[in-house]
């Protein structure tokens, strides 16, 4: 039970896990097919029952009529037999008088229904017979079925099955098919009573006429069998006798009165049975189901039509469900795409009112999200810029302390000119550092700032290095971020010139190539291995260096924040030969706060 429930749950999960269109289409189709089948079956059953009731009623009425006619016919034959027996034979002393005159009258009165009337002695001799009386010499009457039946059951009248009447001699080769009615009779000879047999041979055409015009539909018919199933009458009796046709007569003889269905030779038949009172014969009405309920005959076409209807319905359902599901599926795909990448995804809006609303709502939501994200990114960048700018703008207190200490020392040594030079450089350095709070300055100012820094450091560390600053004149008024050269020079002095004896050179070259602007800071210091150089531009947390890389990383960050990821620093360094750091910027003219190009600076 639990397993079954699990399987059910699994199947349900799998079904509802399919696409929306599949579920929708299959659900529509299933409901429609089930509906069609239920309605079709209900209609079929209703019509079938109704038709069968009608057919049963019709059969019953027709068989009642046939029974009534046949019963009348047989009763007439029995009346003839009774008349012959009770009014003629019983009242005639055969020793004195023949019964032929009365028999002739009776025969003539019923000529169309009778083939012969005959009275036989118990030994099988002809007492009287009409119209022929000469018994065939080869015939032994006592061996005939009708004779033995009459002798064995003396109280009854006996009806035979159809047979050839072969009793009397005739020269015209006439052989009649008859049904024989026989009974035991008492023959009076003077005072003696002997037993004999009265035979009434009925012309078979009498029975045939009763049944011939009975029609049960186009193909239905009525036939008559005796108790043993031997055919008394059948519309196709000739063919049955010629073995060209067969009938279900033996089985049908066992049917009780009423309606039955049977399958004979592959055909379904509706059979009604009615027993004829005295004889025990059965009248059997047969209708073919293919005619009664032609649904079975057209069932193949019905099945094809049903198949067509179902196919058409599935096709229409598929079409309709796709029209319903497609906008949702497109929406779902769009949302999935949004999930993958937020940028520039536009949600398709279509389908029904609800789906359109949903799409519009998602679109609005996405727009909102995009705006918020852009804002967050912008704010983050701004914040980062501010942090970096603030960091960059800070004057190393040690540098200031060292510079002032150097000035004091120079003054104490009486080198006033040097002191003036240093104070002037320091003053200019601070002026450019401040730059009225601007972060973008001209290349000229940036190089000036570098020069002042180098001047100060040169006075502090005399004979340690010399420096050169070269710049293409046309780039001097281009824009640059301020204080990006100084950290590099500081690194060069601190790390590159540390072990250099008087022949250190720091060279700054500023030039442009196309739309790009380059500032190269090179030294002939200690240099560094390639992997160390590569580490310098990575995030500080990952670096193993002593902190000298923080300045370079910050410069790189600031350049890329302002100009984009394609700009920044490139470090080329060879141990014991020197280091070259190239600052790559976009070449763009400097614009002051008023929006005017500052061509003079």
């Amino acid at each position: 039970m639990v397993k079954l429930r699990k399987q059910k749950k699994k199947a349900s999960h799998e079904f509802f896990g399919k696409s929306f269109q599949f579920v929708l289409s299959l659900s529509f189709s299933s409901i429609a097919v089930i509906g069609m089948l239920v309605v079709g079956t209900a209609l079929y059953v209703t019509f079938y029952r109704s038709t069968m009731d009608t057919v049963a009623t019709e059969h019953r009425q027709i068989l009642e009529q046939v029974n009534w006619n046949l019963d009348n016919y047989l009763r007439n034959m029995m009346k003839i037999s009774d008349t012959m027996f009770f009014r003629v034979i019983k009242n005639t002393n055969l020793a004195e008088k023949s019964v032929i005159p009365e028999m002739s009258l009776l025969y003539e009165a019923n000529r169309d229904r009778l083939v012969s009337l005959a009275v036989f002695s118990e030994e099988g001799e002809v007492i009287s017979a009409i119209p022929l009386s000469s018994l065939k010499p080869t015939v032994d009457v006592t061996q005939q079925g009708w004779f033995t039946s009459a002798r064995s059951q003396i109280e009854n009248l006996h009806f035979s099955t159809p047979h050839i009447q072969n009793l009397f001699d005739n020269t015209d080769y006439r052989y009649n098919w008859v049904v024989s009615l026989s009974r035991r009779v008492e023959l009076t000879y003077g005072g003696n009573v002997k037993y004999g047999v009265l035979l009434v041979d009925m012309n078979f055409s009498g029975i045939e006429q009763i049944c011939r015009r009975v029609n049960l539909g186009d193909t239905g018919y009525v036939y008559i069998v005796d108790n043993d199933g031997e055919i008394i009458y059948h519309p196709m009796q000739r063919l049955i006798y010629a073995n060209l046709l067969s009938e279900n007569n033996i089985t049908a003889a066992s049917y009780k009165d009423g309606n039955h269905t049977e399958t004979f030779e592959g055909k379904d038949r509706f059979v009604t049975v009615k027993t004829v009172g005295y004889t025990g014969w059965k009248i059997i009405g047969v209708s073919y189901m293919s005619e009664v309920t032609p649904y079975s005959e057209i069932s193949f076409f019905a099945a094809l039509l049903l198949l067509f209807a179902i196919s058409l319905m599935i096709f229409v359902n598929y079409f309709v469900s796709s029209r319903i599901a497609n906008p949702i599926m497109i929406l779902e795909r769009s949302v999935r795409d949004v999930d993958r990448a937020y940028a520039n995804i536009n949600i398709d809006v279509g389908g029904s009112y609800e789906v359109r609303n949903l799409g519009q709502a998602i679109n609005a939501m996405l727009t909102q999200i995009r705006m918020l994200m852009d804002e967050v990114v912008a704010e983050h960048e701004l914040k980062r810029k501010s942090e970096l700018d603030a960091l960059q703008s800070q004057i190393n207190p040690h540098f200031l302390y060292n510079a002032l200490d150097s000035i004091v020392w120079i003054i104490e040594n009486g080198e006033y000119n040097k002191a003036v030079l240093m104070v002037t450089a320091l003053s200019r350095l601070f002026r450019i550092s401040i730059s009225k709070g601007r972060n973008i300055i001209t290349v000229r100012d940036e190089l000036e700032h570098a020069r002042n820094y180098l001047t100060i450091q040169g006075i502090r560390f005399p004979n340690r290095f010399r420096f050169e600053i070269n710049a293409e004149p046309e780039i001097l008024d281009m824009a640059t971020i301020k204080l990006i050269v100084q950290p590099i020079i500081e690194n060069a002095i601190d790390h590159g010139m540390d072990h250099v004896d008087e022949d250190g050179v720091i060279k700054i070259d500023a030039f442009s190539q196309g739309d790009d602007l380059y500032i190269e800071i090179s030294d002939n210091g200690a240099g560094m291995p390639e992997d160390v150089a590569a580490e310098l531009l990575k995030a500080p947390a990952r670096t193993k260096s002593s902190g000298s890389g923080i300045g370079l990383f910050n410069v790189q960050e600031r350049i890329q924040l302002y100009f984009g990821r394609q700009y920044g620093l490139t470090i080329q360094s060879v141990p014991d030969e020197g280091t070259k750091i190239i600052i790559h910027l976009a070449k763009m003219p400097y614009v002051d706060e008023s929006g005017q190009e500052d061509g003079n600076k």
Partner: protein
Amino acid sequence: MKRQYVFAFTAVFLLLAIIIVMLIQDSKDYNRRNTVYEVAVVIRGKPNSYWDAVKQGIDQAVSNMSVDLSYITMENDYDAKEQAEAIRREVDNGAQAIVIAPIGDEPELRKAVEEAARQVVVIEIESRIFEGKVNSTILADNKAMAEALGKAMLNRRYEGEKYVLLLPEQPPDYLLKRYAALIQLLENEGAQVSFVTVPANPGLDIFPQDTTVCMAALDSVTLQAAAETISVLKEDAPKLCGIGGGAAVAYYIENGTIDFAISESAFNLGYLSIKSAVDILRGQKTEKLIEMDFRTITAQNIYEMENQRLLFPFVK
């Protein structure tokens, strides 16, 4: 349009096309079932009791099926030219099927049958002269019947019995086949065999009035004619047997004139000939050769139910 739509639409369209084709076919079948077919039956000679029995079978088939029948009898027995003309005339008159009991393998008749077979359905009965050239051949096996006759004659033979075979003046092909088979069987057994030609109305003088003779006729007409003629001789009549059926033959069997007869069902022959023709016209499959059963009828078994039904077609 998406591929699956095209596929689904094509499938639905094909299904619809199949239904329409089947409905048209069904309509054609209905019309075929309800068409009245023109069928002509051309027998080999004048009507007699045997052909009457055949005609009853034909009439039964006509009443069961939709057939407009032309039943053609000949002015003369065994006239191939007359039969050929009758066939041509019926084909020209629009017969859709011809049932023919051919007289023999005469060139004129062969030509007429072959011409007819190219235009209409042709069913051959009682012989297999045109087997393979016509649509269907229906008969009782002539050789087997003759052999059955010969064996029965030999079984009833007594010392010194002589055999006389009775043949019509112009025996048709199927009779010659019976004759050949019978004479071979009898001669193989060392029997003395002669033959007598029996005209249409034979006189008593042509038959041997010798009770040690057993005469055998190979067809109903000759058998009936011989029986009618020799029946006056009563106890002095020679023994008579043969191949044939019908009420007259039954009568003479019953009164002892005919010792026994090999009987085929003439009714069945007539019925099956029309049924085969109609089946072919309706496009149904039929056997190219239909061989019918036969029975040996004696005075002792003549009223057995099967024999009653064989000899006396059910007349309502």
